[in-house]
């Protein structure tokens, strides 16, 4: 008879002792101190609607009419169901058909040697540098800086607006090349009306900008084609005070930016709700992951702010895989934008919103798992070695890549496999759906009538 109460008392004592320790070890107070230390603010979506300017941007975004040979659109490589990218290591430009993996079936297509960047929250003013190399960025005085330098056209509302018009003027992406350098499928047609054999980026881009506006609106024609008539209507509704002959590339960019900003704006993620005070928004494991992220992992040193990027440039010693925008199939990254040797092999810190959805990762899409990305930050040797095994030429670059590796990465404390798992769980807490549903974000059709790229 007395043994039952004894057992009960023993169990109660142990339980009381155990729970008291666990309760005191809650991570919330510490995590909130970290949030204060980093001055982290939650993402709060602004009110977005599909007004006339956004509708013009939507048409331009999905219509292959914008590209030189009229065979590719922004939506080809920025697919909503593929994390606003294309799900490929590197984008497949002109010369292919379809979206995402469908484009791999065309072996003669142009490869755009960088991973297509997602568009999440790109309408936010947090973004101070766009593209992997930040070639479109806000300068120290807040002015928009682009590869066009002093010849950059005026009138762009935002950095995104200035950036949005460059892919349509990139030969491999949307513009196309001369017939000498390609086929009808990759021909720039009337979008380039200068002799571009010298490959003069500024001349060609400005030429393409003017010709694109003319293609869209046929401003000099008294009997425009039906496509141009539709675009005239959309432009007039978006910019009611601008006469037809005063439309320029900035109006195209501003409309595209308005649409991208609205269509890819994200709802608050569990992390945002947690920062705003909802302590149950994160699981205990996600909280532990956040603690690693902001602490010993040093992740938040570069992946900082509301968008989880410092919009600066760092080298990770990512294998080159014989693809790149520069001579010898090398990608010098940021150095191509700044012409500074010390910027070689550095790329913009990727924002981490919805990063779990944007497979594959890295500037050349070499990472097929988030675990491999995180591991590579701490130890690039295995991946460099693996790359060398696959291609001995890779070994000749390894020393240089390591030499340009960011010294910040040397400060990462060793992370266990369990801690990397926790980090990945935390990254999941940065995911959320776009505010705008597909039913609104996708158009029924486009002025050219080519609906090939209207896909969820």
């Amino acid at each position, binding site marked *: 008879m*007395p043994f039952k*109460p*004894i057992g009960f*008392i*023993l169990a109660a*004592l*142990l339980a009381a*002792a*155990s729970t*008291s*320790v666990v309760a*005191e*070890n809650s991570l919330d107070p*510490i995590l909130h*101190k*970290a949030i204060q*230390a*980093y001055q982290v603010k939650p993402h709060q979506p602004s009110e977005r609607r599909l007004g006339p300017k956004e509708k013009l941007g939507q048409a331009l975004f999905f219509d292959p009419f914008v590209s030189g040979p009229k065979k590719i659109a922004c939506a080809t490589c920025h697919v909503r169901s593929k994390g606003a990218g294309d799900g490929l290591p590197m984008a497949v430009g002109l010369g292919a058909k379809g979206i995402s993996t469908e484009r791999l079936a065309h072996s003669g297509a142009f490869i755009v040697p960088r991973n297509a960047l997602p568009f999440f929250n790109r309408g936010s003013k947090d973004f101070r540098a766009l593209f992997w190399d930040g070639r479109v960025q806000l300068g120290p005085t807040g002015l928009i800086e682009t590869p066009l330098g002093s010849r950059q056209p005026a009138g762009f509302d935002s950095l995104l607006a200035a950036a949005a018009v460059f892919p349509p003027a990139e030969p491999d992406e949307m513009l196309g090349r001369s017939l000498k350098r390609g086929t009808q499928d990759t021909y720039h047609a009337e979008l380039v009306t200068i002799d571009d054999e010298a490959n003069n980026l500024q001349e060609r881009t400005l030429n393409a900008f003017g010709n694109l506006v003319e293609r869209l609106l046929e401003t000099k024609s008294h009997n425009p084609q039906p496509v141009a008539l539709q675009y005239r209507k959309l432009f007039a509704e978006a910019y009611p005070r601008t006469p037809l002959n005063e439309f320029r590339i900035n109006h195209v960019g501003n409309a595209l930016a308005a649409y991208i900003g609205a269509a890819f704006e994200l709802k608050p993620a569990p992390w945002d709700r947690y920062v705003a005070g909802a302590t149950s928004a994160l699981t205990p494991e996600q909280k532990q992951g956040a*603690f690693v992220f*902001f*602490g*010993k992992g*040093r992740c*938040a*040193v*570069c992946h*900082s702010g509301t968008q989880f990027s*410092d919009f600066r440039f760092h080298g990770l010693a990512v294998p080159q895989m014989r693809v790149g925008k520069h001579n010898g199939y090398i990608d010098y990254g940021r150095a191509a934008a700044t012409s500074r040797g010390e910027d070689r092999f550095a790329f913009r810190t990727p924002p981490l919103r919805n990063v779990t959805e944007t497979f594959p990762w890295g500037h050349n899409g070499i990472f097929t798992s988030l675990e491999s990305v995180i591991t590579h930050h701490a130890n690039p040797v295995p991946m460099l070695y693996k790359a060398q095994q696959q291609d001995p030429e890779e070994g000749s670059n390894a020393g240089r890549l390591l030499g340009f590796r*960011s*010294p*910040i990465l*040397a*400060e990462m*404390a060793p992370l266990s496999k369990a801690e990397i798992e926790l980090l990945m769980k935390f990254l999941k807490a940065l995911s959320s759906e776009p505010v705008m549903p597909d039913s609104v974000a996708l158009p029924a059709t486009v002025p050219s009538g080519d609906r090939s790229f209207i896909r969820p």
Partner: protein
Amino acid sequence: MRPRTIRRLRFWSQLVIAFSLLFIVIVEYGRPFAVSWYYQDEYSKLALECDQSMHDEAALRAGTSGAAKDPALEVSGMVGLAVCHQYDVLRKRMLINGVSEERLALIGLKGLENEQIPVNRMVDPHRMDRF
């Protein structure tokens, strides 16, 4: 007093004394043993992590690494030090629950041995001026 009442009193007094003794044994010996057994791995892990965080934070504060002295790196070092707070909390809780200082020291030592870390690492946290 009636014999039956005396028998009852004797029985209950013995029972109360037995429970009291048992309670003392459990609180004084059972509870510390159970708590140290249950938390020794976590305590050991936190002790090591705290040690490492203190080194890291001191290095980042002093800017002794290849990275330029970076305010964000320093903040990460400070946040990393929060593991020492967790260590302290667990240590205090274990002490409150009757685990002795000696027992905690032993767990710490065993942790260092398990990690193949030389004993001098254990006293390093007290030499933060070395950076």
